[in-house]
């Protein structure tokens, strides 16, 4: 029981990270119609910049603003120099141009930091473990991530539903051309949304630092899962990204934790572990294929 609860919390923590990335990606997708494979690079840039500062100053909290700034600045640069030229192009050009960006950023990071993974120090206040209840210790840092994610979700909900920018974002993801025709400075909106997405990716990257290794290629690992979240949730839908992100986080974590054990009940251990891990890795893609076959536009697609 404790084990199940622990895995659910771990799953929520992973799901929240997926949401932070997917929220930006789904807006960029939905509003600008751009497939941004380089979103994982922004996540990586946030992690590296923040961790570098944190390691040199010894303070987790000083790294945070640096991570956010670095990711946002990188995002704005990408938008102005590359993505802006891709709005009117087809998906193929977008995929390839942002794929090229992945190659560029990965090699740049290798040049700057080398190939060895680096580690982010845990913030003092959140190291160790807390007893959630009798006999159930849990690392408070993971709880912090969950709380941050939920807070961001709430903030985004307010932003999207209660502000003028949010109104434009909603309008943009339903009918881009109409918003433009009504005289809205769509380029400004694009830049803001892209910067916001980059900021959230940087936040996710930096928060992942103490849990995962900060290394080149970390962006691609989570990028594909993020795309699965975006597509399942419905392109352009923050609500979809939230629901699909949390659900996928829990499902993925649970499968990785429990499938090998399940197969061990009727198979030899080595084969069971292999099969369990394999099916667990396939799980989210299988889920996406099933969802798309039933609802080709995803669960919460705007205008669907």
């Amino acid at each position, binding site marked *: 029981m404790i084990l199940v609860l622990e895995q659910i919390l771990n799953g929520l923590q992973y799901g929240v990270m997926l949401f932070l990335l997917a929220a930006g990606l789904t807006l960029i997708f939905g509003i600008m119609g751009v497939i941004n494979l380089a979103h994982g690079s922004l996540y990586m840039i946030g992690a590296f910049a923040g961790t570098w500062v944190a390691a040199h100053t010894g303070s987790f909290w000083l790294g945070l603003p640096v991570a956010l700034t670095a990711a946002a600045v990188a995002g704005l640069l990408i938008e102005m120099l590359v993505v802006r030229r891709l709005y009117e192009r087809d998906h193929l050009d977008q995929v390839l141009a942002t794929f*090229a960006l992945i190659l560029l950023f990965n*090699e740049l990071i290798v*040049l700057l930091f080398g190939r060895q993974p680096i580690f982010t120090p845990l913030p003092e206040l959140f190291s160790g473990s807390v007893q959630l209840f009798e006999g159930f210790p849990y690392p408070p840092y993971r709880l912090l991530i969950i709380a941050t994610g939920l807070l961001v979700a709430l903030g985004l909900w307010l932003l999207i539903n209660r502000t003028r920018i949010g109104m434009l974002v909603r309008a943009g993801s339903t009918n881009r051309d109409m918003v433009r025709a009504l005289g809205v400075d769509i380029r400004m909106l694009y830049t803001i949304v892209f910067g916001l997405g980059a900021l959230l990716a940087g936040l996710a990257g930096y928060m992942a630092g103490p849990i995962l290794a900060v290394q080149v290629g970390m962006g691609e690992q989570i990028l594909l899962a993020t795309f699965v979240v975006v597509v399942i949730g419905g*392109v352009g839908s923050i609500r979809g990204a939230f629901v699909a992100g949390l659900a996928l986080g829990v499902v993925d974590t649970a499968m990785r934790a429990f499938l090998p054990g399940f197969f061990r009940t009727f198979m030899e251990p080595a084969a069971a572990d292999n099969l369990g891990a394999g099916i667990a890795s396939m799980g989210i*893609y299988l889920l996406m294929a099933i969802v*798309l076959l039933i609802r080709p536009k995803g669960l919460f697609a705007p205008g669907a």
Partner: protein
Amino acid sequence: MPRLLAALVILALFAAMPEVASAMGQSSLMTLAARILIYAMAAASLNFILGYGGMISFGHAAFFGIGSYTVGILAHHLASGEPLFGIIPGSGDMAVTLPAALLVSGIAAAIIGALSLRTGGVQFIMITLAFAQMLFFFFVALPTYGGEDGTIISSANSVPGLNMRRKATVYYFILGVATVYFLILWRLVHSSFGEVLKGIRQNERRMTAMGIPVYRYKLFAFILAGMGAGLAGALLANFLRFASPDIMHWTKSGELMIMVILGGVGSFFGPILGAAALLVLEFHLAGWSEHWQLALGAILLLVVLGGRGGINGLLARLAGGRR
């Protein structure tokens, strides 16, 4: 006529390659040429659905890998003497393995295509990627065939009358298969089927209105493309004597797309030029600096942002004498 000439020049270049390589004392050149031929076949099959049919498949490496694994698995069961599933005996005979690779990759493409083609746009890109990733993890999870490390093929498949232990013979065999493959592809692209496919890319709704069963045409094209990539994969396994999940990783699908774009989308010789350009670039840049991907990324970005029609377009503009 100039196209026929171009084709003959390309063929002559590849045919002369083993001699040139041995004359220069650089056997790695022949390996490079063989990889270009194989990747050109795979990229051309992707170009068939992507360039002519407008289907942006981001999981094409799956079929490349399936073809490769068909050869690897048959070789594995030949070596162990144990039949696959208890009924299918292993084989090291090219007359068995190549048709088997075509069949298996064709079936896989039929299943994946039938499901994926029900979506479109971004969702199609992502669902093809999803299926490829599933296959990737499936083969990673198979300890019988080496899991992550892949399976080794002890010797290239046999062909009656040829000494396939010689690297050069394998090379000429690949060149022969590639030539036949591109001849068939040429006929296909210029057939009425090919014309319908181009029509679907330009305007799917119009083709439907003309009474063309669009879904069936697209699926058929998808299956053919899958088989083409499977054949290329089978040749690669024979040449490398090795099959591993690496070749169906999503970055491989990306690489195939890069080759298509670099050469020129929807042009017949584009994939050959693109494969050659990327692999030669990789060959030289990798020798020059370990950070060669930086240069590759920059070049790719420039081609996508600035170029129209890739290398093939550039050549056409040069030949036309105007920009």
